[in-house]
């Protein structure tokens, strides 16, 4: 069950990243670039969760998980602060 959830989350954030990238390429609005990078980060975060907990339960990737989460969220936060106007 957990693996399905993590796969779903990975795919969803990947889809978001792809849609945002497409919109960035057509509009060149910087917020969309930050958002794309952020969702790529979230996709990695979800992927790591999947790898960490399902594929290699013996290896602890929690540092990388929290690192990708923090980076992804901060990129989006800063993008919204700077470029949402």
């Amino acid at each position, binding site marked *: 069950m957990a693996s399905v959830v993590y796969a*779903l*989350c990975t795919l969803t954030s990947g*889809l978001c990243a792809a849609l945002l990238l497409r919109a960035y390429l057509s509009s060149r609005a910087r917020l969309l670039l930050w958002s794309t990078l952020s969702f790529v980060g979230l996709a990695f975060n979800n992927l790591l969760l999947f790898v960490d*907990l399902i594929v290699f339960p013996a290896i602890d990737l929690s540092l990388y998980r*929290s690192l990708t989460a923090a980076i992804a*969220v901060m990129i*989006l936060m800063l993008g919204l602060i700077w470029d*949402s106007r």
Partner: protein
Amino acid sequence: MIEFLSGIASAGSLGVGLFFLRLWRETSDRFFGLFGFAFWVLALNWFLLVWAEPSSEHRHYFYVLRLVAFLLIILAIVDKNRKH
């Protein structure tokens, strides 16, 4: 270090959620509301990670939260494409 990073992720997504909720009010586009709540759920997820030292038997709480967050995002996207 992990707690610190999760704290950043949690506070950050709380802020991101606030941003989206403000955009919801400004535009009355539900899409932003759904994204806002999704990021608040993620904020809760990472906040609990700081506190809970998640040993594997508690993990299912976390993936339920994550599932809720991403279902909200999926719902927002589906809703966006259903209008018109």
